[in-house]
Structures are given as structure tokens and as C-alpha cells.
């Protein structure tokens, strides 16, 4: 054990398998599909959101735990997490509305909706990076904000219909990152049957 690297090692062990990114990719893809196809797919989104995590736990039990063992991350302070999420959401959306009002064109919010979504996803991923200590989570966070900006600049004239493009791109980035991390994890950690 290296002194000082302790919390980092544990964070990496808990989130290093890439499954969290794969789950997020499925969620983003479902969000894009719901936006594009419409309400008929809302149940699919609900299923992924509600049952995705338990399914992920089962997958972890089968392929991750025989390799590195089992650990449950420390509990969050639900109050602190909830207020943090609320403050971030209000700050990002409120900031965007304020800027649009300042400029005198509330329609700007429609143009920049992907950029706003990118900032929110970036905040969530940055928070995850704080827990996991994984550089790839910080990169995904920065990529989210840049992709949101790029979608707004390129397809902003589509208004809210630019969101599916944003979510599909995001899903691709998370899926590729998760898959690469999972393959690297499986290679680095052969199965140990006790």
C-alpha cells in the first residue's frame, strides 16, 4: 500500500470496472429515443432508470466481485447530496435564463438547451469523479460540456430537438469509455475463485 493513495485506490477499485458509464450510456440513449420517438418509450426510460442499477449490481456480482471482491461505497449525506444537486440545477438553469433575459431574447434558452444539459451532465460526472478519483470521469465531464456547446452551436436552430443529438453523442462517449474500461479491468484482474 502506498501512503496517501489510499482513498484513491479504493475509489478506483469501486468504480474502475466501467459499468457505471455503460449504465449511463443506456440511460442517455433511452432519453434520446424518448425525445425522438415520443411518449411510447417513456416506460423503457423508466425501466432503465429504476431497474438498471439493480441489474448492474447483479452484473457486478457475477463478473467484478469474483475478481476484486465486494465493497459497498460509503453512504452519502442525503441532505448534502440533495441540496448540492438542487443548487447546481438551479444555478445552471437560472444562470441560462438570466443571461437570456439580460440579452433580451428568451428564445436563446431553446438554442442553448444542449449546452445547458451538457453543463448539468458535466456537474454530475465531476461529482462522480470526486468519488472515484478516476481521470476518465473528469475527461467525460469536460467532454460533456464541450459536446453540449458544440451541439448548441451546430444544431441550436433546431431548438429542443437538438437534445437527441446531444444525448446520442453523450451515450456514444460513455459507452466507448465504459467498454474500454471494462475490457482493461477484465484483463488486469483475472478471476480468482476462492
Amino acid at each position, binding site marked *: *500500500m502506498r501512503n496517501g493513495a489510499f482513498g484513491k485506490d*479504493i475509489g478506483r477499485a469501486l468504480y474502475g470496472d466501467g459499468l457505471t458509464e455503460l449504465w449511463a450510456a443506456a440511460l442517455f440513449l433511452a432519453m434520446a429515443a424518448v425525445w425522438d420517438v415520443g411518449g411510447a418509450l417513456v416506460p423503457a426510460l423508466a425501466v432503465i432508470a429504476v431497474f438498471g442499477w439493480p441489474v448492474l449490481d447483479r452484473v457486478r456480482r457475477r463478473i467484478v466481485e469474483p475478481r476484486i*471482491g465486494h*465493497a459497498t*461505497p460509503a453512504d452519502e449525506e442525503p441532505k448534502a447530496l440533495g441540496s448540492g444537486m438542487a443548487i447546481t440545477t438551479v444555478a445552471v438553469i437560472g444562470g441560462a435564463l438570466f443571461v437570456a433575459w439580460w440579452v433580451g431574447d428568451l428564445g436563446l434558452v431553446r438554442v442553448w438547451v444542449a449546452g445547458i444539459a451538457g453543463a448539468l451532465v458535466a456537474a454530475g460526472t465531476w461529482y462522480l469523479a470526486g468519488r472515484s478519483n478516476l481521470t476518465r470521469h473528469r475527461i467525460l465531464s469536460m467532454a460533456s460540456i464541450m459536446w453540449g456547446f458544440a451541439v448548441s452551436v451546430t444544431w441550436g436552430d433546431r431548438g429542443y430537438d437538438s437534445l437527441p443529438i446531444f444525448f446520442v453523442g453523450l451515450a456514444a462517449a460513455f459507452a466507448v469509455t465504459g467498454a474500454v474500461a471494462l475490457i482493461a479491468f477484465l484483463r488486469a484482474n483475472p478471476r480468482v475463485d*476462492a
Partner: protein
Amino acid sequence: MSQVDLDRVVHEPARLGILVALANVKEADFSFLVRTLGMTRGNFAAHAGRLEQEGLVDSEKSFVDGQPRTLYRLTAAGRRRLREYRRDMQAVLAAIPKRP
């Protein structure tokens, strides 16, 4: 100079490693801790046993998918002793000059 007084149960490096690891998670099993701490299974079992005897850690044995699993958690006493150890150690560290 007064003698440095540290909790010897906590101060031992292997046991301190186990306690710090458990302070960073809600619970962890034998394999996870052995692997993360880079300890041998026998060495880990001996030190975890001592921590259990002292009431700083508790363990729970179960079977998951037909495989035995021992889960470890820090007890309330373990958290308190680790906090006290941190405070004592900080006092010792503060007494060391920057260029001894």
C-alpha cells in the same frame, strides 16, 4: 519530553490499513480488503481477528451464489478510536520541526 502516547492497536501499520480502508467504505469483503491492502490472506486474517477482539471491526459470514463471503465493517468504537488516533497523530506530527 513526555512519552508519545499512541493507540498501539490502531498504530500497527497493517491494522491501521484495515481501519482506514473500512473508514472509506460502508462495508467490504475479505477478498477486496486483502487485494486493496496488498496483504497475504493469513496476515489479514490475523490482524482483522485482533481488531474484532478489540471491538473495532465486526464481521458477518454468509454465502453468495454458493460462495462463502465474510463482510467487514467498522464499528462505532472503531470510528471513535480512529478519530482519536488521528487527533493524537496530528499532535505528534505538529511537534516535528519542518527541518529536523
